[in-house]
């Protein structure tokens, strides 16, 4: 039997969730015995090469590209998991949601004291992904099957969730795994 295939993406996140994933330390050796990786920043594969069993998403959606990547994942993954506060609720980037986009951009690119007068310009380059009106959690855009809370979720939680999914067994949610204070 072939190994389950995994893919990961970082959308509007800080890569902290990926770093936390790597914090599984030497268990990474067990992991590569258990699964194969497809599209992911971890192996730098850019396109899906086959159907994927589990997709792990870090970060919510703050621009059109995030949305496209997320939809692309949904099309190619049997199970999609929101990993971390940003994916689950929008997280830190969503702090801009209470401020109109125009004001955000003006503050960042026109009025901020650190902007040199000659640089005052709201970027509009065609190559930059277009911003959304606000930051959206993933489940408002595609169907998400599972949610892992935490900023970031601990390596142990990610490991437990992943192995449970792979082995098709119920999650063992020890209190310590989802305790954040």
């Amino acid at each position, binding site marked *: 039997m072939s190994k389950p295939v995994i893919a990961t993406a970082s959308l509007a996140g800080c890569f902290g969730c990926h770093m936390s994933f790597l914090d599984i330390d030497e268990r990474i050796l067990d992991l590569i015995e258990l699964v194969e990786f497809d599209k992911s920043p971890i192996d730098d594969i850019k*396109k899906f090469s086959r159907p994927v069993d589990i997709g792990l998403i870090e970060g919510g959606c703050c621009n*059109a590209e995030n*949305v*496209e*990547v997320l939809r*692309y994942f949904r099309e190619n993954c049997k199970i999609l998991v929101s990993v971390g506060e940003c994916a689950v609720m929008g997280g830190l980037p969503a702090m801009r949601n209470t401020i109109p*986009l*125009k004001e955000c*951009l003006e503050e960042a690119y026109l009025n901020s004291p650190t902007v040199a007068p000659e640089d005052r310009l*709201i*970027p*509009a380059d*065609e190559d930059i992904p*277009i*911003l*959304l*009106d*606000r930051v*959206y959690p993933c489940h*408002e*855009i*595609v*169907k998400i099957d599972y949610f892992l809370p935490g900023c970031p979720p601990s390596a142990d939680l990610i490991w437990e969730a992943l192995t449970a999914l792979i082995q098709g067994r119920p999650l063992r949610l020890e209190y310590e795994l989802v305790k954040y204070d």
Partner: protein
Amino acid sequence: MNYKKILQKYRKDRTRLIEILKEIQATEGYIPEKGILSVADELGLSRAEVEGVISFYHFLSARPLGKYVIYLNNSITAEMAGREKVARAWEQEAGCSFGQTSADGLFTLLETSCIGMNDQEPAALINRVVFTRLNPEKVSQLAGWMREGRAVEDMVEETGDGANNHQLVRAMVRNNIRKTGPVVFGDYSAGQAIRKALETTPEGIIDEVKKANLLGRGGAGFPTGLKWEFCRKEKGEQRFVICNADEGEPGTFKDRVILTERPEMVFEGMAIAGYAVGARLGILYLRHEYSYLRRYLEHVLQKMREQGWLGQNIAGRGFAFDIEIKMGAGAYVCGEESALIESAEGKRGEPRDRPPFPVQKGYLNLPSTVNNVETLATATQIIVHGANWFRSMGTPVSTGTKLLSVSGDCQKPGIYEVEYGLTIKELLEMVGAEDTLAVQVGGPSGNCISEAGFGRKICFSDLPTGGSIIIFNRSRDLFAVVRNFLDFFIEESCGWCVPCRAGNVLLKKKFEKIASGLGTVQDLKEIEAWGKIIKSTSRCGLGQTSPNPVLTTLSNFREVYESRVSKEADFIPEFDLNRAVAEACAITGRKFQEEQEHA
């Protein structure tokens, strides 16, 4: 402005903070920073504490308001009676929208939750004066007078029935008493009950009230005799009787009518409770919206003192008991007994953890019994006429009568005193309701009943209600009703518990998704699951009942929801990429084209 003078008037009493702030606002139109600092300084509070109190209550404001502040009620019956047109008329007259003050500083337009006038909507408070049955023509007349600078009191042209006509009230409010019964509106001669009570022992009073099986009329239905007994047995240098006249549940207005027509009966009930529990002081906590009754009620209290029914030596039998009135400042949650106590102590009206219950640690952390207006009035009649008389009415468990405040789609909205055990069907006939789609029993926190449930009975074991009955006929959109109720809870949540503060917002969003036709069967399941979480993890009754508008309509009108959700799709996003990028495109001048295929 001399803040010191106001503070001195209230003896720098911290429990009077809300009144102090109200008085500053009454003279200055708002509570300026200087006032906040001065009050904080004199009362030994932090600035944040004073600001926290101001920001908690709808009717306190730290920003300047117009000369005339129009608080237009936004309850569902107001909407049904044409509130929208009235609101637009105000906006046109004022030249500003709701939430704003007109450029000339004459008008401020604000929304407010139910002001207890559900049977005479659309209603508004202008400054502190009640105006009922507004329409666009009336609005332009009022606005004209305001431009002439007329005093708000002088804009009341016609006063209502009964004591609304009293020279100390002079309100256009109507009692609309449609059916009197033998208890609250039965034979009554003031002073009789307290005299009779003082001939018995306090334990005897408690026994009689227990025997009558009087259950609290404020909503929770706790046995009154037992509550008094707990309070009496609790150790404490002092005990208090608190009458809950906060009446904030949308659709309830019976306590207003009792206080207008039967105030002595309520005050006597407080004195009897005071005798039973061993209290010397009673507090009537009156909601701000009923400020127009205050002078009248003070007058009634004074008369009762003169007649020896209150004061140092009641009925010549050496029992001392007096009553003072404390005003709310606009917050539904202050009807919850522990929040009410916090508010009466001059704080933010945030519910306390319970236990300890108010009977153990209530007002000033001393044993207190909090009882509803109607409960206390009813207790008075039980003492006069006896427990057996009382038990001969109603059902074996739900003894006696209940005042219902009926509003919505019926010919005769108003107050009905009925025996417990009345079916919804009988009630609908009594009030002249036709073609009824739904009956909201117990207000937004209660139950929305469909025709299948019209045989059910109004009583504690079937359909309990604090008194609110709102009727909707088949021309009404159930979703508009639910929406209004959900908005109410979102607005009134005190914010302490995340499930109540945030959960209700998420619930509403999910509800709107379904309402807009983008719901799935999964969304319905989630609404139910989230509703359960909010109910089981919120600290007070507000959060514990806040999902009821959705949950009860979902169970009694499931087909209305199912007709709006997709049976096939397992996920429908509300998200629309083109709409979401429109703003950024406008700002940057870029055009967006969705990529068909991923690069």
